[in-house]
């Protein structure tokens, strides 16, 4: 039975208080009908006796306290899901906006999802080749991982994300069951259009589900958008056995929308005014990525966020980093040097890399060379810094080789552009070529037998 009330007592956008209600439950979906017949939606945030506090998903403009009719629908916000969603474009509330027909749902799903039982998870360990050396070689991505891109305003994170979406593949696997779910959260039309045209150019558009909440759409709608996307992804991955890559941009806009609602609710703010439950809220989204035992599909999640003032300790990147399995950090300094993609290798990290590399997955020498490259680049950068203070003469010949290594590493390994697609063998061989700048005795992190096997041949002639 649908109950309708005309007892709206107070509206402080985006919150609305309805009196004298009966049988209303927490988290229920609410429809508000305006006097012109248009419908706004919201959900119940709190019920206290006969009073319900409703959070609107859309703007409250035009709602009249006396005329508005409020209906409580008896179920939480749901998304009708179907395999036909592939190739379609939806708004942030899950309604088609591409002019096509409505989706005939195979089932309705609560967009909040349910926590995944850790005992039912399958550990992600299948190597995904992105064709980008800094990711494949040093911060390996695996299926079912959540790996965010920490970027800054004006940095080319969109190009990097598009490159990953275009080139990502699992070795020896057919790509027919691959899908992309893209959630645009409060980004500009131009940014969104970049992705759409990119997907169209590569033909990926037919395998893509787009959820689009642009910068001029209501901010509160942004809270639902990523959940819509993840609900669709869960359906495709765990019902339709697809390998889904979810790209969400920009999480900073999402967190700000959450702060807006929290402030309207007059909650005690945490750091920088963000609500204390930001961690839990983000975790409930990010943790929906992964693999399940006995299921073929997987959800790999790449959230993109712009760090305010490039500050990694800002609550949004900070809490994200605590939840996700690593992070790819873009560096403004490298970008200014014209290095593309400007991945800052040292603070970037993939926590799941160790399970996805090695003999049978990539190559036996991968782990050792990876650690050696990191260590050598880090030493090289330190030496370069020292060199700029004290001059070249202050460094030992070995220190100078390290400095040279750091330069070459940035120029050749990091700087590959957005079009080059390197196989993992090419990436590893390039790593060896760079390491051969250093004396063999410095390679303490690589097993001696691998040094024998993979040390570039040209050096032996010399």
């Amino acid at each position: 039975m649908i109950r309708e009330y005309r007892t709206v007592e107070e509206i402080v956008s985006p919150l609305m208080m309805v009196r004298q209600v009966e049988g209303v439950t927490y988290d229920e979906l609410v429809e508000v009908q305006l006097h012109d017949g248009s419908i706004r939606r919201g959900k119940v945030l709190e019920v206290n006796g006969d009073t319900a506090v409703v959070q609107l998903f859309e703007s409250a403009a035009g709602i009249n306290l006396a005329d508005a009719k409020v209906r409580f629908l008896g179920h939480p916000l749901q998304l009708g899901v179907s395999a036909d969603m592939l190739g379609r474009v939806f708004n942030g509330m899950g309604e088609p906006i591409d002019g096509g027909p409505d989706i005939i749902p195979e089932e309705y799903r609560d967009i909040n999802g349910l926590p995944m039982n850790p005992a039912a998870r399958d550990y992600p360990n299948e190597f995904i080749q992105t064709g980008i050396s800094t990711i494949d070689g040093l911060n390996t991505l695996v299926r079912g991982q959540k790996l965010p891109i920490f970027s800054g305003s004006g940095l080319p994170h969109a190009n990097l994300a598009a490159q990953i979406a275009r080139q990502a593949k699992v070795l020896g696997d057919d790509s027919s069951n691959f899908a992309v779910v893209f959630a645009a959260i409060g980004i500009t039309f131009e940014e969104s259009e970049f992705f759409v045209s990119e997907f169209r150019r590569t033909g990926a558009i037919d395998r893509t589900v787009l959820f689009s909440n642009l910068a001029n759409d209501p901010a509160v709608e942004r809270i639902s958008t990523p959940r819509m996307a993840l609900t669709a992804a869960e359906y495709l991955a765990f019902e339709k056995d697809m390998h889904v890559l979810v790209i969400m941009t920009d999480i900073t806009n999402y967190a700000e929308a959450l702060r807006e609602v929290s402030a309207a609710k007059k909650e005690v703010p945490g750091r920088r005014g963000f609500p204390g439950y930001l961690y839990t809220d983000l975790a409930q989204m990010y943790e929906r990525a992964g693999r399940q035992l006995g299921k073929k599909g997987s959800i790999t999640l790449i959230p993109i966020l712009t760090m305010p003032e490039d500050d990694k300790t800002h609550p949004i990147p900070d809490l994200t980093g605590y939840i996700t399995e690593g992070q790819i950090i873009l560096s403004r300094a490298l970008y200014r040097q014209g290095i593309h993609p400007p991945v800052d290798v040292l603070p970037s990290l993939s926590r799941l890399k160790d399970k996805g590399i090695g003999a049978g997955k990539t190559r036996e020498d991968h782990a050792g060379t990876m650690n050696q490259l990191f260590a050598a680049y880090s030493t090289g950068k330190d030496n370069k810094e020292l060199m700029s203070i004290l001059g070249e003469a202050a460094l030992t010949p070995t220190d100078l080789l390290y400095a040279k290594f750091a330069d070459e590493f940035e120029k050749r390994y990091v700087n590959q552009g957005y079009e080059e697609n390197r196989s993992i063998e090419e990436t590893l061989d390039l790593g060896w070529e760079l390491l051969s700048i250093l004396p063999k005795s410095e390679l303490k992190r690589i097993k001696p037998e691998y040094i024998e096997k993979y040390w570039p041949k040209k050096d032996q002639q010399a």
Partner: protein
Amino acid sequence: MVFPGPVPHWRRERRQAIPSGESILKEGRINLSGKVVKVSGPLVVATGLADANMSDVVRVGPQRLIGEILTMKGDSASIQVYEETSGLGPGAEVVTTGAPMSVELGPGMIEGIYDGIQRPLEKIVEKVGPNITRGVEVPAIDHDKKWPFTPVAKVGDQVTGGDVLGTVPETEVVLHKIMVPPTMHGTITKIAPAGDYTVLEPIATLTTDDGREVELPMMQKWPVRVGRPYQHKYPPKRPLCSGQRVIDTMFPIAKGGTAAVPGPFGSGKTVVQHQLAKWSDVDIVVYIGCGERGNEMTDVLREFPELKDPRTGESLMKRTVLIANTSDMPVAAREASVYTGITIAEYFRDMGYDVAVIADSTSRWAEALREMSGRLEEMPGEEGYPAYLASRLAQFYERAGSVECIGSDERRGSLTAVGAVSPPGGDLSEPVSQATMRIVKVFWALDSSLAYKRHFPAINWLNSYSLYLDSLKPWFDENLGPEFMRNRTAAMSLLQSEASLNEIVQLVGKDALSPADQLTLEVARMVREDFLQQNAFMDVDGYSSYDRQEKLLAMILHYEKLCRDAIAKGAPVMALFQIPAREKIGRAKSVEAEEYPQVYQQIEQEMAQEIEAVSAQGGEEA
């Protein structure tokens, strides 16, 4: 009062309030119910509960969601619900169970994975599939499984709380001792013969002093927020060997001690915690994944059964209990998870075992506390955390210790607590880090700049500390020789000198240093790279025994001594640094565990010869 040993007054008082364990066979008395009036996320207010007790567990709504009473005001109670409250509204029924939040203790917990309120996650998968739905009811330990029980006590024995009635071989490595529940005492009038029993079948009958007959099953219940009693606490004196060189040698923790691992994300907190859970030389490990990643728990769940305990040769899972309340699971249950974990740990400690509780991460627990506090509209303290944050943290860590257990056989057990702290932005001035630092005795400060250099474990040797060094010294002197502590001090001072020398190098360059200082820098680098760095993902290097740690550090310091002597005689510094034995020292940590004593001896010999050769040559040139 037949409670052996002196019992502090305050504890005698409290004993009245703690349950005896006898009520569990008569459970299910449900006589009080109320109605929901308000729902706000996990906080529910209900009226009509005037007769309920504070902290009672209640069942809410038609789905029988589990909750706990937080505050009482007249007949209305604020309830923290441990499950998602979507779909709950005013008018729903609330039923109190009349008992506080408790765990079931008995055979069947080892190798298990539980959520924050001790629901078995693997059973839940079987019952409802890969996602956790609401209101699932599964007993914490299997009530139907039969365990082979061997009696130890005899009819006519006078027993008291903690006395062992019999044993059950729970896994190959854990002998589960069935104990008399803590507050009971009397005479055994009946004891079951050896045979297979479920945890609920009575295995003994006790006649108490006032003539009541009590049947005791193997299972006990205990409220999680109350520490289990013990006879005495002792200052911890034995080190916990974790096989991690930077921990065992540099900043050791004692069995029964407390430690915190703070660090920003990406600095390797979880790897350190996993290494401790894997290699600590304790009998039982309780690993609490509190508000952390689901995949990390899955990793433990899939990896531990494959790993062999270096001491018993059995799988590590056979001594491990997992509590997993991941970040996407309800926040209220996260708050309970650390208590659930430590109560299970105390139960095993009472059997006389060495137990380690590893909690990852206490910051998430504190955030759960903050969230509930906010919903209760309490006055916030620092950064929105409730004012009682520090005292709650202290209560948790204080449940650790090296104790003489209750029972008349004077057995000793220990409970070591290690908590990760995840300070926002890596800033240790925030309330959770500060409150933790005031309590714990060992502090392993993780450093992101070390992590960027791939120096793992990224424990900063200048900021970390251990307050157990003095109390552990007698043990080290006796078991590893007095050299061990001397070498440790020498290595620490080398690292200290390195830090100050590096400042000079920044200004004037390495060449300007005297040969002796250059040697200091070089040896400090060896201590860092060849000793402190340890690869958790390499089979050989993942675990290093105390003997091996001692030998490796002694070898590096011996190299220093020989070089210092040679430099004094005028040997060229660079030649000393480039002797072939140097590279061998660098690879010494990856030598197979069986071969290291011989290999290390050989390296020492080569090293001495080569340095001898260099100084002879150097002398000629000069």
